[in-house]
C-alpha cells in the first residue's frame, strides 16, 4: 500500500483507520493522506467502504449508532475524534455534498443563508449569497430568481446549489459522495469543471463509481477493494495519471480495466 509522501501538503490524514458497524469491520487499516488543494478520488467496487471512509472524515458516521472507529483521523494534525472536539465545528470545516441533490424546500436565497445564519454569520448576507452562488457557477442562472423555490431548479442546478450551500459556511475540505450519479452528462461535466475551479481554494475528496470521472476530474486516486472478510481496504493510492495508465497492483489493474471478478 502506498501512502502519500508529500507530507507538508497533507490537510487530512487517516492513520490505521478501521471503521466498524457493530462488530462488522467495514473498513480496515486505511492510511491515506489527502493533499491540500487537490481533488482526490476514491474508487472501488460497491460496498468496499468508500462512503464509510468519506463520512468518517467529517464525523457523519456519528449519526449511525453502531458506528465506531479504530485509528486516527488528523485534520491539520488534530485528532477530529478527540473528546474536546466539537463535531459540529468539524462538519463546518469539512463540508459534504451528497449523491442526490438535497436542497431545502425553501428559496434559493434561503438555502444559502440558512446554514450561514446557524453558524452565526454576521456579515452582509446578500453579498455572501452572491459570492457563494458565483463560486458554485450558479449565479448567472439564478440571480433574477433568488426567491424562487430551490426545488424548481434542474438536478444539476440543485447540485450546484448544494455545493454553494456547503461553501457558504467557509469549509476547507469538501467531501462529495457520488455527486453526479443522478445527473445527466452535461450537468456532470459542469460539476467537474466546478470542482476544478474550487480546488484552487478548497481540498476536494470525491467518491465515484464512475472511473472515467475519476480519471477526468481528479489529481490523485485511491483504489479500495474488499477483502475476503468483506472489510474494505485501500489497495493503491497515487497520481491519477499513474493509476489509470500504470497501476502497480494487479487488483487495481483488474478493476480499472473492467476485468474485476
Amino acid at each position, binding site marked *: 500500500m502506498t501512502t502519500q509522501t508529500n507530507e507538508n501538503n497533507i490537510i487530512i490524514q487517516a492513520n490505521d483507520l478501521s471503521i466498524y458497524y457493530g462488530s462488522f469491520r467495514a473498513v480496515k487499516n486505511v492510511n491515506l493522506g489527502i493533499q491540500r488543494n487537490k481533488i482526490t478520488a476514491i474508487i472501488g467496487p460497491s460496498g468496499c467502504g468508500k462512503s464509510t471512509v468519506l463520512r468518517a472524515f467529517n464525523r457523519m458516521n456519528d449519526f449511525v449508532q453502531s458506528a465506531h472507529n479504530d485509528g486516527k483521523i488528523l485534520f491539520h494534525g488534530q485528532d477530529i475524534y478527540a473528546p474536546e472536539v466539537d463535531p459540529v465545528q468539524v462538519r463546518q470545516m469539512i463540508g459534504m455534498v451528497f449523491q442526490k441533490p438535497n436542497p431545502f424546500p425553501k428559496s434559493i436565497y434561503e438555502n444559502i443563508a440558512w446554514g450561514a445564519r446557524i453558524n452565526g454569520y454576521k456579515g452582509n448576507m446578500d453579498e455572501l449569497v452572491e459570492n457563494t452562488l458565483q463560486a458554485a457557477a450558479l449565479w448567472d442562472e439564478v440571480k433574477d430568481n433568488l426567491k424562487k423555490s430551490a426545488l424548481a431548479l434542474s438536478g444539476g442546478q440543485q447540485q450546484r446549489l448544494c455545493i454553494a450551500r456547503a461553501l457558504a459556511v467557509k469549509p476547507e475540505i469538501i467531501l462529495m459522495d457520488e455527486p453526479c450519479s443522478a445527473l445527466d452528462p452535461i450537468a456532470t461535466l459542469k460539476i467537474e469543471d466546478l470542482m476544478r475551479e474550487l480546488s484552487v481554494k478548497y481540498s476536494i475528496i470525491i467518491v465515484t463509481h464512475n*472511473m472515467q470521472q475519476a480519471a477526468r476530474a481528479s489529481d490523485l486516486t485511491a483504489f479500495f477493494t474488499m477483502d475476503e472478510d468483506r472489510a474494505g481496504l485501500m489497495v493503491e493510492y497515487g497520481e491519477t495519471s499513474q493509476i*489509470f*495508465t*500504470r497501476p502497480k497492483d494487479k487488483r487495481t489493474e483488474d478493476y480499472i480495466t473492467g*476485468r474485476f471478478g
Partner: protein
Amino acid sequence: MPRDTLTRQIHHLLDEVLLLGSMVEQATLSAVDILRQRDLKAAATLYENDQLINDKRFAIENAILILIATQQPMAHDLRLLAATLEIITELERMGDYAKGIAKVTLQLKDADINIPNRDLERMASQAVNMLHRGLSAFVNEDPNEASAIAGEDAVVDDLYNHIYHHLVETMIANPATIDQYNQVMWVAHNLERMADRVTNICERTVFIATGDMLEMDTTDDEESDGE
C-alpha cells in the same frame, strides 16, 4: 470475466498487426530478391503494392481509434493500444524501405555493376527474422524475448558496416560508378534502419508488459527518407 467484447476486439487487432507484419516481411525479402534478379517489372509492382501496406496500417489505426472511443480502455489495455499505434507506424515505414529498394532496382535499370547480393540478402533475412520474432514477442508480451531481439541489431549493423566499406572502396576505385553504388548503399542503409525499427517495436513490447519505457537503441534519432 467481463469485457469480452474489448478482449475479443484486441485479439482481432493483434491478428491484423501480424498480418501487416507478414506483408512487410514479404515485401522486404522480395525487394532484395528482385534487386538480385534485376527484375524491373517485379520491382514496379512491388513499388505500387506498398499502397496495400499503407492501407492496412490506416485500417488498423482506425480500428484502434474506434476502440479507444467506444471502450474507454485503461491501464494495460490502454498501453497496448497506444503501443500498437506506434508499432503499425514502424511497420508502415519498414514497408517504405522495401519500396525504396524497389525504386533503386528501377533506377539502376541494367547498369553493369557488382551488387553484393549475398550480403544484402543476409542483412534482409536477419532483419526479417528479427521482425518476425519481435512481433511474436509483442503479441505474447514477452519482455525478455523482446530485449534479447533488440540486442541482435548489432549483427545487422556489422553487415551494414561491411557492405559500406566494400562499396566505398569500389567507388574510390571506379569513380564513374559512384551514382550507381550510392544507390546500392541506400539498399543497405534501408535494411539497417529496418532493424533499428524492430528495436523500437521491442521497446514498446517491454513498455506494454511492464509500464517502463526503455530506450534500448539511443542512436536511433536520425530520421532519413528510405525511399
